[in-house]
């Protein structure tokens, strides 16, 4: 090999290597490349930090900030010593029924979004931009970074389970908001010991948070229960389905019989 061809080969190799490294850590899903996703509307489920179908079972001094409820079941155990603040406990009442109904709508909405990227498995070490990320059984053993603005939306679709390992972390950068991070899980979600998790989990079956796991978001289970153990589950506040307020538009008239006093 001549010197010039060796230099070309070397520079080409380095360039290819750089591309490979970048492609492993920064997954494109930029707003410029994809139409911006709208948030998943949670409706009445939005006020809940924890919502199960059959049971909510807690061990230890868990703090739940937001509503806590079950629908179709009647078992909420462990409160106290668990504490519910900035919300109330709803056991198969009108609001929990409305919330479960709206959870189904939200789940189906998230599941129906077109993926920005598919085939994800391990989320460790990834820095993701706004978009829809799809995979089978999703796992997180280290740190997942979500980089975007306050109104940018991140949606994860797991066709199987979601499992976060001990000490794992979801990190928000660039102003990204936990209001706009959604996890649609077609089976069950498990947050292992000490996980620092962000976003709203919408699990088809059940959700469990092991000792010391913290959630800036919501744990919502459609058909099973939610199991807690010395956790902090803080539902995000200042979330609106439309993000920042937009200018109101003129009303659309509805044809119909007027019944005002005249």
């Amino acid at each position, binding site marked *: 090999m001549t010197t010039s061809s060796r230099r070309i080969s070397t520079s080409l190799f380095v360039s290819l290597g750089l591309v490979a490294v970048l492609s492993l850590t920064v997954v494109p899903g930029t707003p410029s490349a994809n139409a911006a996703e709208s948030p998943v509307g949670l409706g009445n489920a939005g006020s809940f930090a924890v919502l199960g179908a059959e049971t909510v079972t807690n061990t230890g001094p868990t703090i739940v900030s937001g*509503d806590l409820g079950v629908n179709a079941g009647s078992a909420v155990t462990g409160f106290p010593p668990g504490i519910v603040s900035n919300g109330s406990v709803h056991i198969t009442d009108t609001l929990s029924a409305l919330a479960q109904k709206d959870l189904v709508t939200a789940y189906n909405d998230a599941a129906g979004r077109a993926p920005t990227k598919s085939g994800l498995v391990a989320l460790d070490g990834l820095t993701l931009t706004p978009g829809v990320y799809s995979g089978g059984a999703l796992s997180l053993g280290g740190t997942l970074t979500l980089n975007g603005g306050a109104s940018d939306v991140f949606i994860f679709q797991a066709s199987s389970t979601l499992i976060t390992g001990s000490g794992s972390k979801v990190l928000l950068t660039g102003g990204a908001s936990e209001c706009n991070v959604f996890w649609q899980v077609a089976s069950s979600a498990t947050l292992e010991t000490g996980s620092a998790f962000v976003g709203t989990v919408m699990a088809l079956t059940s959700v469990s948070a092991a000792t010391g796991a913290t959630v800036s978001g919501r744990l919502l289970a459609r058909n099973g229960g939610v199991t807690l153990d010395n956790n902090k589950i803080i539902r995000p506040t200042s979330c609106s389905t439309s993000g920042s307020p937009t200018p109101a538009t003129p*009303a659309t008239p509805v*044809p119909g019989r007027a019944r005002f006093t005249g």
Partner: protein
Amino acid sequence: MLGARLASVLVAVMVTSSLLTGCGPVVQDGVTLGTPSPSRPSKTPVAAPVPPIAAPVLAIGTAATATSPRISVRVKPGGAVNLSLANPRPSGAQLTFLVVQSIDGWVEVNLPDRPNGSRGWIDSSAVSLHTLEYDLRVSTQQNTLTLYRNNTLEKTYSVATGTGGTPTPRGSFYLTELLAPTNAGYGPYAFGLSAYSEVLTSFGGGPGQIGLHGTDDSGSIGKSASHGCIRMTNADITALASVLPLGTPITIE
């Protein structure tokens, strides 16, 4: 691209700041001082056009539009649910509230039903929020309705208000729906208000709700002649119907 996103973030910050710091209702220590009435226009002339990135948004208030089929209303943030409202409303209009204040993920709103002036708390994630720029002021003494845009007087209209026996209720309300009436007597358009007659508990099959609408009785305009509604000429109500969103505040004095 980055500049456009930065601009949108800055505008959003300014809008949010104006909502929370007093362009809408005055709130101190979580307590609302007075009703959501906009302040009178200052003597400062309307500003000349400025670049969009720096333009202040003089939000008169915020409308909250329901995003699910039923909205739960509570007596306090996170408190017991005491009311469940259907969306859309019985008229078919999208359920809309006028925001009083927002705290920690909850919005206190004016409610569209009796009693007059009722309020409640709803989860902020159950609604979409929209800034308002118009508001209306009605004088039952002068039988006038004045349209303001960003606190600047746009136009004063002659209207009919209620008689002594069926007065138009006074207070701060908002527009809850817009109909294109299929029955006679209401003109081409009729806004429903969050105000209800304090005399009539029912009228025409309805619950005694006050409307702002056109009329086939143009001779009543400028007089205290209605059963509580605010009547306008058909041309005037058509003009208002083309610009006013649901949630627009209307103050009746």
